[in-house]
């Protein structure tokens, strides 16, 4: 017996050989779809991660090369499907830029309202799922209830709720319906109380703070190095928002603040997003009070055929910088259409954020990156 024992302990792996590889996803309650993360664990401590993505790859960029500019417009809604309006805005603007047209003021204001509503909707989903991942199950239902109000506005406007295809190249297809302003105003009036309620449930909750503060820290340097954008960058203390830095539409006309955090941890990202919802409401309130009259469509030819050339245009989507790089050869279809997805780039920082922490933190960090796999995998 003694001999055998010596043999086992001699390799010095007797107590150290407890590294296990945990395959998290693609079917897992907290990976927000089909993300697969391979975790190398020492007990519960993470010593390495690897993301495996592509389970939802649909070849959107290839499809883009085989559809006309107008035909491709609805496809972008399927990228970040919880923020389809933002996707549509980015695409329409990129093509407009290529065509050298701008949407008329009325269309621009409506676009701003719908996009900011979309930002709130996207952040509401983020909040609900993030809280659920950390174990607070109730906020999910509250946020989905509130999101329903936004979806109703979309439904009234264009008939669709999720993949809205709300905008067209050059402006809007539909003018506003009767009572749009009232409905949006009603939403804005009800919103602060609800957001306050979520904050009451979470912001000062000891467990919530313990679970998020100091978890998944991403410093400003790291965030820039990893190309991380959106609320994650701002939570690290970088005051950068494309709506302010390189304004598009008529964002320059509205007053709003860019909330920033200090520590770049999960808690700061939470606070930043909560504040962003309030700021989005501010923009909507300003915009809805002064929707100009006039046409809703710029003069765009029936057949969209941009001159040869290439353009990169990006907007501040709820998740970060959403860019479209379009190369036109003067034909009916884009020669090359590249989508720069915020989720994909942000997800890359996951490894940096979770290394050395515990399994439970991975879940919190995946939630706080706020990925949508439709956009990661395209």
């Amino acid at each position, binding site marked *: *017996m003694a001999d055998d024992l010596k043999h086992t302990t001699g390799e010095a792996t007797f107590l150290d050989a407890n590294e296990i590889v945990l395959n998290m996803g693609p079917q897992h309650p907290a990976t927000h779809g089909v993300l697969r993360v391979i975790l190398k664990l020492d007990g519960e401590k993470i010593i390495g991660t690897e993301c495996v993505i592509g389970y939802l790859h649909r070849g959107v960029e290839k499809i883009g090369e085989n559809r006309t500019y107008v035909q491709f417009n609805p496809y972008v809604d399927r990228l970040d499907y919880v923020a389809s309006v933002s996707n549509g805005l980015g695409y329409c603007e990129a093509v407009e830029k290529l065509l050298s047209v701008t949407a008329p003021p009325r269309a621009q204001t409506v676009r701003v309202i719908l996009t900011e509503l979309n930002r709130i909707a996207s952040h509401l989903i983020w909040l609900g799922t993030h809280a659920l991942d950390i174990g607070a199950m109730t906020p999910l239902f509250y946020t989905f209830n509130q999101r329903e109000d936004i979806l109703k506005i979309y439904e009234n406007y264009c008939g669709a709720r999720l993949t809205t295809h709300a905008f067209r190249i050059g402006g809007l297809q539909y003018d506003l319906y009767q009572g749009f302003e009232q409905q949006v105003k009603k939403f804005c009036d009800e919103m602060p109380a609800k957001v306050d309620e979520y904050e009451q449930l979470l912001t000062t909750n000891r467990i919530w703070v313990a679970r998020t503060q100091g978890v998944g820290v991403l410093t400003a340097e790291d965030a820039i190095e990893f190309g991380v954008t959106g609320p994650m960058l701002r939570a690290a203390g970088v005051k950068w928002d494309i709506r302010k830095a390189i304004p598009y539409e008529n964002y320059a006309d509205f007053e709003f603040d860019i909330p920033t955090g200090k520590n770049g941890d999960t808690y700061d990202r939470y606070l930043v997003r909560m504040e962003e919802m309030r700021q989005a409401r501010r923009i909507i309130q300003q915009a809805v009070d002064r929707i100009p009259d006039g046409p809703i469509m710029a003069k765009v030819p029936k057949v969209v055929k941009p001159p040869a050339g290439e353009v990169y245009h990006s907007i501040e989507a709820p998740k970060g910088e959403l860019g479209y790089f379009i190369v036109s050869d003067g034909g009916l279809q884009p020669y090359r259409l590249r989508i720069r997805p915020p989720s994909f780039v942000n997800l890359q920082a996951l490894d940096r954020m979770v290394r050395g922490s515990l399994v439970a933190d991975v879940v919190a960090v995946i939630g706080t990156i706020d990925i949508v796999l439709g956009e990661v995998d395209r």
Partner: protein
Amino acid sequence: MLDQAFFYLFASVILLGGLLTITRRSAVHSAIFLIATLLGIAGLFLHLQAEFLAGVQVILYVGGIMVLFLFVIMLVNLDQAARQRQFNRQWWLALLAAAAVCGEALYGLYRGRGAFTFPGAVPGNMPPNTQAVGNALYQNYMLPFEVASIMLLVAMVGAVVMAKKRL
């Protein structure tokens, strides 16, 4: 009659459990049989109307120590050990030694059989003896009890120091 039946039941659980504990290949199976053995011992305590001891036996040994055993077994990769030969080449020597010890013990018991005459079990309920245990430990045997606890404390601190390379 019923008393004896229970005694033999518990005794056989203990013996069988002990035997299976040392012969199972899987460490977890061994642990399960060890638990059965410990539960059997608790049963014997109960049978002797030492109910406090029985309860503590279960809580400490089954609920505490065996749970930690299992914890360690699960944490440490024992697959390798399971594949190895269970007994080394000297098993017959061990058997011989065990038989000798067993014989000695039996002989001793046989010689001293007069000392085993217990008064018959009290038929009804005995008064609760939890307090008696407490009194014995904290009054009559205070010093040994405290010495034992200090020894345990030292052992625990030593284990922590050894296990944690960096404090």
